[in-house]
């Protein structure tokens, strides 16, 4: 091989090297850009759900129309009919509208608007027989137009609101009567068929209860199991079977745990369907191996010298482990548990099978009330056709991701801050 050939050969080798490196970099870039696209997509779709569009209406709280008087009790007020005063206020937006268009005027605001009026009145009883400006939630369609989520220039027959409604909206908008504010009801309300008043309150509570049940079961059980396997288990067939089982369960598809919950907890033990109790139970079984494995790793990282030191002082095996080894392994154990729980928080499939997909319009107050959880709420809303639910789904995902990010960074913080590096 002469020098020239050698040079060509070398050049080939180096271009192969460059190509390989390029593949590596581009793979990472592709993976990360997927992540970016996903997050950007979710955030651009969802952020607007955190604001709520309202219209300022001049409401005349007329005694006769409401059928109440200044001495009415709260209960009577709650039963009173506020429809008429709302109607009057809406009709006054376009006094000369033909009868056909009047229904469209009514549809401008949310069906929950009368409840809002009631709430306003209960707080400001002195407005009786006076006219007050009240902020009323707009209907989902107008809300979407206001946020620019819905193109307004497509033909009238292909959108869910009429030109007339749009005209009224523009008029009010130019008069600064359309306002936006933070969407607290989205955080606190339960689910609803109407996007503008649907909220994640019920599923937040459901997720909370489910996670608590899951934590209470899986954390102590997981830690004890890990301690046993790492510190006490004799090397025999039974231990081996347990270890194989733990490792396999960590890789069993989550939906299989759902089938277990359905077949055993619901149909055999008659536990109440759709409840965080059963959800938490199922997720606990799923999370258990995912806690045991990092716990064991944390225990394994504690050097034998610590154990020998304690044993040499005459401490029993149990004392040695409980007083000396476990505290040292705690940071790793806790971060493993938190990561396991964050996986449980994002889990959907098994919960679908145990009936946590019901339409829940009341915020649950105990783990025994039927409820939904955040990821299932995402699934439920993603099936709905209304444009408003797309925004809500993305917003729910943002909340979910926020919790996951919080839990995971806390776990990383724990690990970095408290975990000793044994040299």
């Amino acid at each position, binding site marked *: *091989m002469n020098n020239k*050939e*050698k040079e060509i*050969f*070398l050049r080939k*080798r180096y271009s192969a090297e460059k190509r390989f490196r390029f593949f590596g970099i581009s793979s990472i870039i592709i993976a990360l850009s997927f992540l970016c696209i996903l997050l950007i997509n979710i955030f651009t779709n969802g952020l607007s759900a955190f604001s709520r569009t309202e219209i300022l209406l001049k409401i005349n709280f007329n005694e006769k129309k409401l059928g109440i008087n200044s001495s009415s009790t709260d209960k009577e007020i709650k039963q009173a009919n506020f429809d008429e005063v709302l109607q009057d206020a809406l009709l006054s937006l376009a006094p000369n509208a033909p009868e056909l268009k009047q229904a469209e005027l009514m549809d401008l605001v949310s069906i929950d608007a009368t409840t809002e009026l009631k709430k306003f009145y209960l707080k400001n009883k002195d407005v009786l027989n006076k006219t007050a400006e009240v902020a009323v939630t707009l209907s989902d369609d107008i809300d979407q137009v206001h946020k620019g989520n819905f193109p307004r220039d497509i033909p009238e027959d292909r959108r869910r609101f009429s030109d007339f409604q749009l005209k009224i909206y523009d008029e009010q908008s130019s008069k600064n009567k359309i306002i936006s504010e933070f969407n607290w009801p989205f955080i606190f309300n339960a689910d609803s068929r109407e996007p503008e008043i649907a909220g994640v309150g019920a599923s937040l509570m459901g997720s909370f209860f489910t996670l608590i049940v899951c934590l209470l079961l899986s954390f102590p059980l997981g830690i004890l199991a890990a301690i046993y396997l790492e510190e006490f288990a004799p090397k025999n067939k039974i231990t081996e079977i347990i270890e194989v089982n733990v490792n396999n369960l960590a890789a069993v598809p989550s939906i299989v745990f759902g089938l277990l919950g359905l077949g055993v907890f619901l149909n055999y033990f008659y536990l109440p369907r759709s409840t965080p109790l059963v959800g938490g139970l199922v997720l606990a079984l799923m999370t258990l191996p995912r806690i045991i494995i990092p716990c064991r790793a944390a225990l394994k990282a504690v050097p034998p010298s610590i154990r020998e030191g304690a044993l040499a002082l005459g401490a029993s095996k149990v004392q040695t482990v409980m007083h000396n080894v476990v505290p040292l392994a705690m940071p790793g154990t806790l971060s493993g548990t938190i990561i396991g729980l964050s996986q449980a928080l994002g889990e959907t499939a098994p919960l679908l099978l145990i009936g946590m997909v019901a339409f829940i319009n009341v915020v649950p107050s105990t783990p025994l009330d039927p409820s939904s959880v955040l990821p299932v709420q995402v699934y439920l809303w993603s099936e709905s056709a209304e444009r408003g639910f797309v925004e809500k789904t993305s917003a729910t995902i943002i909340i979910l991701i926020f919790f996951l990010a919080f839990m995971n960074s806390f776990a990383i913080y724990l690990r970095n801050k408290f975990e000793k590096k044994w040299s």
Partner: protein
Amino acid sequence: MKNQKIKISTKNLNVFYGAKQALFDVNLELEEKKVTALIGPSGCGKSTYIRCLNRMNDVIDICKVEGSIKIDGQEINKKDVDVNLLREKVGMVFQKPNPFPKSIYDNIAYGPRIHGLADNKNDLDQIVESSLKKAALWDEVKDRLNQPGTGLSGGQQQRLCIARTISINPEVILMDEPCSALDPIATAKIEELIDDLKKTYTIVIVTHSMSQAARVSQNTGFFHLGKILEFNLTEKIFKNPDNKLTQDYITGRFG
């Protein structure tokens, strides 16, 4: 000593691992086709030194090499030097035998293949055979070239690694304690081999064993705390060292 050709020379060589300095102004001139032994207590920088000679320290992120290293008068401690070609010229044998998890044949053929030294299967066969012969391993393995190299005994593995190194015709062979993981019989075989190889190659060997240095080398350098304290003919160093520390080390007072 003066009329010998100098193969490698280092001037003011300083090496840092992060903030820690491992070598201090090492100036050495190594002669061609001779065996140079580097001795000294653990952590004195002798391995670091020879790893500079084929730029193996590049592999370590935090390692920084300053100063001049010339091989055949050409500076190699520069950014634009092609380390792969350099390493083709300066081969290395490691402390622990590290055959690739491949067959014996493929272990030897690896170098010629990546450097394109063989045009056809025949050439390759020949390179493999001659390398194994030079490493005195041929007779032991000629019937099982397709078996994995990791299945050989420790001494055979180390000779396989030497054969692998010489398969690409290097000019210099660096040996980093090549016998430290081997038993005395295998060590003797390797030493014999080194004696044989010095006819063709310039050899630099790092060793912990005084007697080995005395047996195989012509020149010896004594390292201490990252500095070269004494460099001279092996005979001189072992019989009548100039430096008190060298004397103490050789007679086993410390180290």
